[in-house]
């Protein structure tokens, strides 16, 4: 079942005499319980696509649907009911002056017992709830972000380069956690990353973007074995070379 989709999404930023089009006729579909990977180099439009999907930015044209119902133009105050975002900057995603418990409670009416259950589920302990973000490690902070998303009962997680600021061991732990959550809660995940190796390992489907255009889109195995664009081939070659 398609939980989230976008049709013919376009976005253009005009700055004086220069214009950039990070999204050009982008279509996407996300099915329930699926992990969709979006890869591409810096400036390819993948983060802009997440901002548009989440309602942080409005598309210039095109439509967005949640469970078949259009939500184009709705801000994050409304889209937050069905999707949540995990940011690259885990520390920056929490108010530096608030304790973790206060941040987690902010968007949730859940009891303390439920909060404790969820932070246990993401591998954290009660003792961390009283701390401020700067007193947590990057991995702990990212797990707290995931806990916050789970507490909001959103069906979709938008993950924007969530492992790029973490060390290799922590990266693996966070990815494993995401997979577990997906399996257990049947949550759909959009994973934006420049790391094709990581995306090809955990995603059900892959979308490859270049200069705002989707150049490849399909089942992970198919995109990896039969890339339809030169750009994807080059990306794959670079992974193999490394």
């Amino acid at each position, binding site marked *: 079942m398609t939980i989230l989709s976008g049709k013919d999404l376009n976005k253009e930023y005009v700055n004086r005499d220069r214009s950039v089009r990070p999204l050009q006729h982008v279509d996407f579909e996300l099915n329930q319980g699926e992990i969709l990977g979006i890869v591409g180099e810096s400036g390819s439009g993948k983060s802009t696509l997440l901002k548009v999907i*989440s309602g*942080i930015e409005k598309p210039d044209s095109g439509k967005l649907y949640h469970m078949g119902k259009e939500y184009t133009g709705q*801000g*994050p*105050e*409304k*889209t*937050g*009911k069905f*999707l*949540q*975002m995990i*940011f690259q*900057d885990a520390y*920056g*995603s*929490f*108010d*530096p*002056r608030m304790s973790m418990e206060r*941040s987690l409670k*902010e*968007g*949730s009416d859940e009891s303390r017992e439920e909060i404790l259950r969820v932070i246990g589920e993401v591998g954290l302990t009660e003792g961390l709830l009283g701390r401020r973000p700067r007193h947590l490690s990057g991995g702990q902070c990212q797990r707290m*972000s995931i806990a*916050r998303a789970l507490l*909001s009962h959103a069906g979709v997680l938008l993950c924007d380069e969530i492992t790029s600021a973490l060390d290799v061991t922590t990266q693996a732990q966070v990815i494993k956690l995401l997979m577990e959550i997906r399996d257990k809660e049947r949550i759909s995940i959009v994973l934006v990353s420049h790391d094709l190796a990581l995306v090809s390992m955990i995603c059900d489907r892959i979308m490859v973007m270049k200069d705002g255009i989707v150049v490849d889109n399909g089942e992970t195995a198919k995109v990896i074995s039969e890339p339809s664009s030169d750009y994807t081939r080059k990306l794959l070659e670079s992974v193999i070379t490394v």
Partner: protein
Amino acid sequence: MKKKKAKLRKRVIIAVVFAAILVLIATFSGVLAPNDPYATNSELIRQAPSAAYLFGTDNLGRCVFSRVLIGARTTIASTFFLVAVSFLIGIVVGMLCGFYGGIVDDILMRIADLMLAFPQMVVAIAVAGILGGGLGGAMIALGITMWTSFARLARSHTLSIKNEPYITAARLQGKSGLQIMMTHIMPNILEPVLINALTQIGTTMIGISGLSFLGLGVVAPQAEWGSMISEARAYIQIAPWAVLFPAAATVITIVVFNYLGDAVMEYRNAE
């Protein structure tokens, strides 16, 4: 680094102690004043400082020491009130402009630019002249331009944090703009704006005393340092103490509050 921070902390503590002493003196000036600051006595005109009249007497035989103490209340209280009101107006306007942007931002910031295009004292003299004498008029005259510095500072800090991921996260949690401003933006921009308020106390005090000195502030016989200096300068050569002590009180108070503002700012910068 630790040594430097300890030194700066010590500076803050010293400044706070001195500022607190001044505030306490102003608060309890009614009790501390040995004589009635408004009682005139033709037999005590322009008496030099003595044990009975520590700072001497003025042209109407009033106790200068008692008037300096009562004047502290007028000067310090009016300064604090004006800074507090300007701070509140400025922080609210700055947050609204920075967070929402658009036409409201354009209009309010152009008004602020207009206010800042003229020297503050020139605008204050013009406005106070239109409003007539009185402490209220002087405060309005100074406040018209004062809120702009707080608004600009609050706006720039709001702009710098409004796109932080935690603000986006709060929006995704369903928080409204007002809730975000109260819960996330205000607490995070409060400190730099508050430090600016501390550094403004000295300038405001000069402004209020300056307008009173020019006859555009406090009206006689109310005791206020600027008006006391203005009154006594006519006979400065025969009773210099009537000018010297209120002037010294003004200078000391301004130095203490400027020192407090600078000390707090340096300490926070070091942190």
